[in-house]
């Protein structure tokens, strides 16, 4: 299966070649651009840590998508589930003012997970009971929560002093500890890494994981083996929602300390790229998340140094997804001489 591991590497190289065209069109030198994309962010401690900060939510959402995909459930709703988790965390962080961190933080994680599950429940239920396509419903749930948050922030949670649409600030105890002084890297990164290990064990090493992979790969085959496919898929969808919810908890408790409607910046969707690029393998997901984090950070450097639009980062990410998907597809074919 060494070819499978080579795919991301080949995809990255192909993406560099393809995106060079855009870089040239934007009036910059591709080599210089990629130097700034890749090397510069890693050459200072501060920006290298910033890469990990950016990677943190992506590890969560990448794992969330991976978990559902493994069971054959296409969760496009990690974005919405992330916000659901964030709402729960925002509530905990601003409400339980006299509890110590050791209690508040786990409480936030548990409720954030539950909120993500809750937000994933309806599409999963419709899928299992009525065979409603989850791609559509999970996507719709993303829009719904944005309106819900907008209503919250412009209503009960509006900042009473400034009038800005942002929730009340977290109390000190609810804020994730910084891992390294003067950097933004926070506890969320550690939780993400622990989760990588847990998800890996669950998917690859437990009976449930095997049943989940079986159901995801062949519904008929799983049914024949006596697996309750609907139940398996429902659980996978809910856990996926919960993990995405943790992404919201981590962002709000680790970075912002209050709820804003621009909390995510599309981490839920990028999670799909991360999961695909990581080959639906938790370890791969963490590597992919860091790579995307690097490109995100690098895009700002490139834009600053070379004066090209910062959206170049998005172009690179999207191209990378398309190239990876094409390669995964083509992997199943073999070139033959007739």
């Amino acid at each position, binding site marked *: 299966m060494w070819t499978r591991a080579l795919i991301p590497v080949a995809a990255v190289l192909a993406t560099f070649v393809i995106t060079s065209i855009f870089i040239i069109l934007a009036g910059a030198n591709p080599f210089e651009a990629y130097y700034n994309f890749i090397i510069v962010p890693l050459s200072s401690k501060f920006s290298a840590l910033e890469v990990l900060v950016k990677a943190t939510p992506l590890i969560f959402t990448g794992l969330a998508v991976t978990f559902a995909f493994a069971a054959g459930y296409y969760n496009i709703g990690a974005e919405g589930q992330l916000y659901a988790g964030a709402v729960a965390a925002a509530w905990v962080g601003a409400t339980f003012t006299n509890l110590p961190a050791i209690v508040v933080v786990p409480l936030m994680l548990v409720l954030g997970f539950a909120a993500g599950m809750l937000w994933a429940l309806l599409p999963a239920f419709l899928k299992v009971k009525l065979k409603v396509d989850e791609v559509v419903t999970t996507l719709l749930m993303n829009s719904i929560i944005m309106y819900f948050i907008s209503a919250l922030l412009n209503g009960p949670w509006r900042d009473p002093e400034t009038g800005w649409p942002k929730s009340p600030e977290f109390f000190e105890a609810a804020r994730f500890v910084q891992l390294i002084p003067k950097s933004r890297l926070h506890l969320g990164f550690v939780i993400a890494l622990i989760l990588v290990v847990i998800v890996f064990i669950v998917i690859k090493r437990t*009976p449930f994981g*095997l049943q989940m992979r079986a159901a995801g790969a062949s519904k008929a085959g799983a049914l024949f*083996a006596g697996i309750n496919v609907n139940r398996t898929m429902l659980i996978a969808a809910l856990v996926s929602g919960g993990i995405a919810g943790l992404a919201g908890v981590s962002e709000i408790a680790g970075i912002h300390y209050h709820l804003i409607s621009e909390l995510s910046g599309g981490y839920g969707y990028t999670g799909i790229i991360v999961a695909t690029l990581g080959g639906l393998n938790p370890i791969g997901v963490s590597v992919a998340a860091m790579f995307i984090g690097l490109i995100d950070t690098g895009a700002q450097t490139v834009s600053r140094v070379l004066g090209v639009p910062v959206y170049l980062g998005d172009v690179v990410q999207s191209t990378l997804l398309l190239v990876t998907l094409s390669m995964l597809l083509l992997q199943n074919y073999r070139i033959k001489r007739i």
Partner: protein
Amino acid sequence: MLAVEMKHIYKSFGPVKANHDVNFDLEQGEIHALLGENGAGKTTLMRILYGLYKADMGEIFINGEKVAIHSPKEAIAAGVGMVTQHFTLVPPLTVAENVVLGYTNGVVLSQREIEKNVAAASEKFGILVNPSALVKDLSVGERQRVEILKALYRNARILIMDEPTAVLVPQEVDVLFESLLRLVKSGLSVIFISHKLIEVMAVSDRITVLRDGKVANTVKKSETNQVELAKMMVGRETFGVRLLDACETSEPIYELSGVTLDGKHGKKVLDDVSFCVSRGEILGIAGVSGNGQGELTEVITGLVTPTKGSIKIEGRDITHLAPGQLSDAGIGRTPQDRHEGTIGDLSVAENLALEHIKDYTQKGLLDRKKIRDDATTIIKEFQIKASPGDQLRKLSGGNMQKVVLARALSRKPKVLIASQPTRGLDVGATEYVRNRLLEERARGTAIVLLSEDLDEVLALSDRIAVIYEGRIMGVVPSAEATPEKIGLLMAGAVQH
């Protein structure tokens, strides 16, 4: 006035009385079916009418006039055309050339004119052909149309068709029947030979049944049915096979009684299915595809719960058990489609373990060593060309089928459900699977063999149950079963 009347026809070939005092008549514009078992004398009678054989005795009248036909040429002149079991076309020539061949009145026609004439005839009779196509490029159904057109072009008013459907696929049969029904409306009279009851009931106006060279009966289609026709055809109620009791076995350990499954439109896809299998016995379930074997497999492998009825193993009711529990109860299950009963993306070892995942769990985690070790043992025992870690989808059909079979057999089941066990396999793999089933039988396993391959059912089974439209038509001891007899049961011709 009758189109054809054959009176007291006798014809013997040595000791064989192919036709013995046969009376047969054909009305104007009717389709008259000649029905009979192999060797009943149908072809002989028609060859006499077409001038290929000379009757030993008897008279023939065509349109009321007594005739003596000595050759096909004279038959054609009398308005009789015949489409034989084997076509008489010249492959390298065009359709048009074949149609006019030997019928050009001595005048040499140009290619274009021939094609024009044939195209006109094609239009007139509603028999669609492409006049300029070469016969060798045509499908069997198209060739048959050319044969029909050839007869009609020669002004045949009486058309004999000897088992025209034997060579056709179902859609072509439909097209043929439509053409025939249209042609008789415009005055053609048709004699249609077949031994398929369903077809005979579909197109004919009257039916004459021949048995051992004699007319058993002539009946109107509207006044008979398949079962009655079948009885006339074979002359006995039971085709000479003893129909057994569904549970007439020495030591029944697996038993279905009254299993019924409602389909989508209120139709029963399984209707009161009952049978028993005993230790060391193979019960074959034969049937034309689409008559309920698929549904039966789903029910007895636990994928679908029957609407009514019960399934028992050693007296224990297992009707409502889930697939995994069935295996624990001693049922070895194989899927009817190996691709749908397995998971191609998982490894061979994982596929082997999946059904009994509890046995491979230790402290909540998968016991990967045990999964691999057990797989290695099974792979060796069943001579599967693969290693435990190989993705199942990469295996050849035969090896995949071995995995499926091994998965069921490795648990030493008391009952084995073998569904389409050799479908799509090559000779070697088929041989292996069949031998393996026989070994299991020798070991004392009760085997239910569901197969669309009648030869396989006949070769392996101790008893054969025939399923037709979801019902068991009868159970036959294999020693007394022949393809013909089972075929009649499969066609729904007779019921126990």
